C-alpha cells in the first residue's frame, strides 16, 4: 500500500475503535518527516486517506518528536473549545527512502553537516558520556533492549517480535561504539491514529477515556555541539518537571503506573529514566536489573515493545501516547499493566529534544 492508504487503514480502524464515523471528526492534525517520503505538504496530499476532505487539516513536523507534537496539537485543538473531536495521525514509510541520507539533512549545512552522519553516531556520543560518568556497562544497556524486545511479544502490532538475550545484543555488529545493531531501533512503515475528544464528547464515546493531565515540550537546541554530552538529557528533565508539576505528580516512580518512553536506543533506557526522576542519578542500571521496569515491576516501561521494536518515525511518538492511553483505558490485552491510573508517554528527536505527555483515568 502507499502512504495515503496506510493512513486510511489507521484512521478507519481508529474510528471503528471509538464507534465514530468520519463525519464526527471536526479537525485533523497529521505529521511525518517530509524527506522520508519526499512529499511536500503531506497534509494536503493525503486528505483522501486521512478523511480530511472538506475538513480543517494541518501538518505538524518536529522530527522524531512529531508524534507527540501531533498529539499535543490535537489536545490544544480540543482544549480551545472550538473542536469537539479531533483526529491525530502520525505516519511514516521509511522503506521508501534512504532514511540516514535524509536525516543527515537535519544538520546545519554550514557548521554541522560535514560531521553529522546520522542519528546513531550522535546517540553513541551521548552513550559514551553516560558510561563514563555512571560506570554503567554495555551489558546494562543490553538489558534495556532485551526488556523492550521481550515486551513486544505481547503486542501484535510491534514490528520486531523475536525475543533476544543480553548475549545476542553483545554479539551483534558494532555500528558506532558503544551502539550495536540490537541496541537500536529498526526502520518501520506504519501509521497511528488517535481520537481526542472534549469532556462531553468523550463521555459519550467511552466510559473510560484517558484524560490528558499535562503536556510539556522542550526543543531548545539547534546545533549538536551545544549539547552537553556529559550531563543528563536536559530537555527531558525540564519538560518532565514542568509536566509533573502541572499534573500534581510529586514522586514519579510511585505515582506513575506505566511509562511508554521514546527510547530509540538502549542506553537511553538507562540515562533518561534518571532524567525522568524514576531513580537517582547513575542508579539506572541497578533499577533496571532489579526488574522494576519489567511487566509486574514497580513502573513497567514500554509494555508495547517501545521504539526498539517499532520505529515508523512520524508515528512513533504518537504510538507512545496511544499505548499509554490504551493502558489507562484498560484495553491493553496481553500487554495490559494492572490497575493503571496514571500513564506517561514521551517523545524524542531533533537536537536532543523531548516531549512529555501525561494521562490519567481520573479527570484533572
Amino acid at each position, binding site marked *: *500500500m*502507499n*502512504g*495515503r*492508504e496506510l493512513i*486510511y487503514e489507521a484512521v*478507519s480502524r481508529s474510528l471503528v475503535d471509538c464507534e465514530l*464515523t*468520519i463525519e464526527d471528526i471536526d479537525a485533523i492534525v497529521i505529521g511525518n518527516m517530509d*524527506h522520508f*517520503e*519526499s512529499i511536500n505538504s503531506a497534509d494536503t496530499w493525503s*486528505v*483522501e*486517506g486521512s*478523511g480530511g*476532505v*472538506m475538513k480543517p487539516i494541518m501538518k505538524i513536523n518536529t522530527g522524531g518528536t512529531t508524534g507527540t507534537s501531533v498529539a499535543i496539537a490535537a489536545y490544544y485543538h480540543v482544549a480551545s473549545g472550538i473542536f469537539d473531536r479531533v483526529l491525530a495521525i502520525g505516519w511514516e*514509510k521509511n*522503506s*521508501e*527512502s*534512504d532514511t540516514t*541520507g*535524509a536525516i543527515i*539533512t537535519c544538520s546545519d*549545512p*554550514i557548521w554541522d*553537516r560535514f560531521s553529522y552522519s546520522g542519528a546513531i553516531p550522535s546517540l553513541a556520543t551521548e552513550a559514551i558520556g553516560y558510561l563514563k560518568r555512571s560506570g554503567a556497562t554495555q551489558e546494562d544497556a543490553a538489558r534495556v533492549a532485551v526488556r523492550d524486545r521481550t515486551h513486544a511479544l505481547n503486542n501484535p502490532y510491534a514490528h520486531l517480535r523475536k525475543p533476544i538475550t543480553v548475549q545476542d545484543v553483545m554479539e551483534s555488529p558494532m555500528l558506532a561504539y558503544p551502539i550495536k545493531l540490537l541496541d537500536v531501533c529498526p526502520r518501520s512503515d506504519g501509521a497511528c491514529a488517535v481520537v481526542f475528544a472534549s469532556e462531553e464528547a468523550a463521555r459519550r464515546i467511552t466510559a473510560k477515556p484517558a484524560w490528558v493531565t499535562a503536556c510539556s515540550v522542550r526543543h531548545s537546541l539547534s546545533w549538536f555541539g551545544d549539547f552537553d554530552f556529559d550531563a543528563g538529557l536536559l530537555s527531558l528533565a525540564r519538560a518532565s518537571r514542568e509536566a509533573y508539576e502541572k499534573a500534581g505528580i510529586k514522586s514519579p516512580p510511585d505515582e506513575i503506573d506505566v511509562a511508554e518512553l521514546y527510547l530509540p536506543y538502549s542506553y537511553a533506557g538507562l540515562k533518561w529514566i534518571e532524567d525522568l526522576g524514576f531513580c537517582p542519578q547513575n542508579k539506572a542500571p541497578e533499577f533496571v536489573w532489579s526488574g522494576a521496569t519489567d511487566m509486574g515491576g514497580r513502573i513497567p516501561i514500554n509494555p508495547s515493545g517501545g521504539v526498539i521494536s517499532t520505529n515508523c518515525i512520524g508515528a512513533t511518538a504518537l504510538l507512545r501516547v496511544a499505548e499509554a492511553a490504551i493502558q489507562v483505558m484498560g484495553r491493553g490485552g496481553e500487554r495490559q499493566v494492572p490497575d493503571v491510573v496514571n500513564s506517561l508517554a514521551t517523545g524524542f528527536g531533533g537536537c536532543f529534544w523531548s516531549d512529555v505527555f501525561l494521562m490519567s483515568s481520573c479527570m484533572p
Partner: protein
Amino acid sequence: MDWLVHTEAVTQKGQISLPYRWWVGETGSRFLTALRDEGKILGNRCPSCATVYVPPRKNCGACFREIDDWLELGDEGVVTSHTVIRFPFDLHPAPVPFAYALIRLDGADTAILHVIKENLNSLRNGARVKAVFAEQRCGNILDIEFFRLI
C-alpha cells in the same frame, strides 16, 4: 555594528540528492500494470456515491469507504481544463510549447492530468482527445505518452 559593513557575505553551495522508491499500492499497481501490459485504462467506482475515479483509488475521500468495483474505461475523453506551457523547466515531458490538460475520460467522473503535444492551436476545453500509448511501457503514468486531439 561597524564590523557588518566590512564583512563579506559568504555563501556555500549544496545539493541534496536522495533516492526514493515509492510503493504504488495494490490499487495503483493494478492500474499501472494494466497500462503497461494491456494498454488499458482502468477506473473504480465508489459504492456509496458512485463516483468513478481515474486513476482508481483504494477509498473514496468523500464517503471514506473502500472501493472495490473496477471498470475499464475507453481511451477517449474530453478536455475540461488546459494550459499551453511556454516556459522551460527540466522536468517537462516535452519541449515547449506543449500543454497540460485535465481530461475526463468517457465514463469517468474525475479528470486525469496529462499532456497534449500537437495541434495546440486547436486545443479548447470540450475538445475530444484520445490516449496515445508509448511503444515501450514500464508501469508508469507515461505509458500513456500523451493525448491527441481527435
